[in-house]
């Protein structure tokens, strides 16, 4: 009995936090999303906000674009961070690996905004890269490297790398080196070892890293806006526009819910396709 009481006492702040700061506002948002202004200017119950998403091409196309780019970012982030994580945990000595991990963490002590501005200073037409390329005589006039989809994806990958590399490192640390050595003894090639031993073992780490990176990228506002420039309509920006520029909270709330539902759906499909289990990934 006393044990259960202690449990409730310790659980109460968490539950209050969840309820007051997450569940309650969402209920409010849900009701807002179900209301719309009729021709007389009065608020009535209606599904028109949700309908608008599916009937207006621009809205669902923006969502599609955002989702595809978020998936692409997740894949690229994995491809870049996997060799790094492997190198840190399996190749270098223990002391150096701690040092490298800290090196990976350091940039994240600075806020995202500052990091993105850093990239902008490097890439802009009058920026650092162009300056040195001109001095070396490789180009005669500066190239605009900012404000396109490639620079935007690069920025997104950069901001989300840490969230992939940390789960990968912790999964890889659990992998017994003996397994890899045994596979070598039995004549397996490097590719077979990675594909048959390493990847299956760290799959839970990949899954949890991918979920975090995907969600963060899908919900990012700053990076697409600053680095993507004129073609970078991101779905979060559309929510912002509805709330702030158009004063249409109802439509914005509906978009918020659609983002929540559709992104959950994408993750669910992803888990099914790769035959992963959420509880195992998070354990």
């Amino acid at each position: 009995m006393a044990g259960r009481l202690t449990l409730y006492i310790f659980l109460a702040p968490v539950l209050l936090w969840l309820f007051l700061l997450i569940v309650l506002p969402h209920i409010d948002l849900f009701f807002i999303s179900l209301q719309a202004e009729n021709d007389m200017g009065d608020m009535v119950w209606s599904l028109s906000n949700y309908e608008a998403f599916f009937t207006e091409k621009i809205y669902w196309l923006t969502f599609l674009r955002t989702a595809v780019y978020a998936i692409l970012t997740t894949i690229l982030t994995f491809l870049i961070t996997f060799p790094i994580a492997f190198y840190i945990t399996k190749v270098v000595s223990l002391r150096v690996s701690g040092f490298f991990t800290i090196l990976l963490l350091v940039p994240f002590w600075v806020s995202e905004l500052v990091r993105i501005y850093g990239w902008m200073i490097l890439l802009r037409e009058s920026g650092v890269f162009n300056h040195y390329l001109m001095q070396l005589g490789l180009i005669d006039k500066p190239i605009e490297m900012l404000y396109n989809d490639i620079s935007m994806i690069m920025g997104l990958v950069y901001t989300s790398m840490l969230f992939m590399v940390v789960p990968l490192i912790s999964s890889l640390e659990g992998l017994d080196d003996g397994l890899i050595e045994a596979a070598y003894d039995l004549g397996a090639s490097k590719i077979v070892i990675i594909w048959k031993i390493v990847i299956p073992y760290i799959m839970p780490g990949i899954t949890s890293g991918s979920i975090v990176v995907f969600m963060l990228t899908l919900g990012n506002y700053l990076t697409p806006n600053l680095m993507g420039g004129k073609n970078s309509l991101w779905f979060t920006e559309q929510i912002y526009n509805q709330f702030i520029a158009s004063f249409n909270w109802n439509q914005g709330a509906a978009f918020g819910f659609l983002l929540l539902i559709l992104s959950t759906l994408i993750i669910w499909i992803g888990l099914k396709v790769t035959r992963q289990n959420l509880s195992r990934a998070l354990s």
Partner: protein
Amino acid sequence: MKFTGILTAAAILVATSGPALSAETLKILTWTGYAPKALIEKFEQQTGIKVEPTYSNNEEMIAKLRATRGSGFDLIQPSQDRISSVQEKYNIYQPIDYSKIESNQIITSMLKAVQKNTLVNGESYAVPFCYGTSGLVVNKKAAPNAKDYDALMDVNYKGRISYRLKRPTLIALAFSKGDDPFAKYSDVDAYTKLMEGIGEDLIATKGLVKNYYANGDALLELMRSGEVNVALAWDNGGWKLHDENPDIDFVAPASGALGWIDTFAIPSKAKNVDAAYKWINFMLKAENAAYFTNQEKYGTASKGADAFLEEKIRNNFSRSFTAADIDKINWYPPVPAKLESIEGKILDKVKASN
């Protein structure tokens, strides 16, 4: 022992910080530059009231107050055209008690105009603070022929054009096509048709644009480095750049610059209304208003400020505006509700197009 030590220290800390906490504060929601540090310090010395400014823009100011139903700030500074329809719909402001305003230090015609434009149910909601125009900021060496808004769609300046993807851009381009969007404010269908046409123009010429700048500072940086030569922007930005590089200047467009007036308004649930009135009167005092104008280069609504202005500032205005240009300024009338969502959708389409 150690523990009591910490407790005593904490008690002393609370006791000493007590008076500071209980001192009056004035929370202002305003634009960057509208509450200069030197003036805040002067105000604090004179009245003992602590000023806490928060910087924002029209849309965010309104959204913030709407979310809190008019509380959280004691004074806000929206543009005059964004007051009456917002007040009718969301009731976030309170009427101004003009007997508390030292109206003899405000330019009479401007006060009258703002009172008229912010009139809702027989009461007015704002006091003018400063004014300015939007037009073209041009690097005259690189773009000598940029005289009207259509330069923003001119293929000669490919890759060297920038503007904000906001409503002033739509309105400016409508004027340059010889139309009058303000006259169509009351006719939703005609306005929608006009704006959709402008949206199509923007999509067709999107390839010429360098980027859509997010704030004034970002644009100044782009123009300084020569990455942008033609931009739709505020006059004070052009004048600031002119100080650094005489080739760059503000140009009043042939179809008329867009004139705006920013105001003081008091949120409906402001806590410290008295301090808000004190700040309004303080900011419009000739020498303080002149300090603001010398710093930020916006025109002021203060009557006597002219005498304290630097020569340079007066020249700015006469250099960019002839008498005819002044006559041509299109002042923003109050924005009716609903227009924002029409414009919002068009702007989204422009941004999403390739």
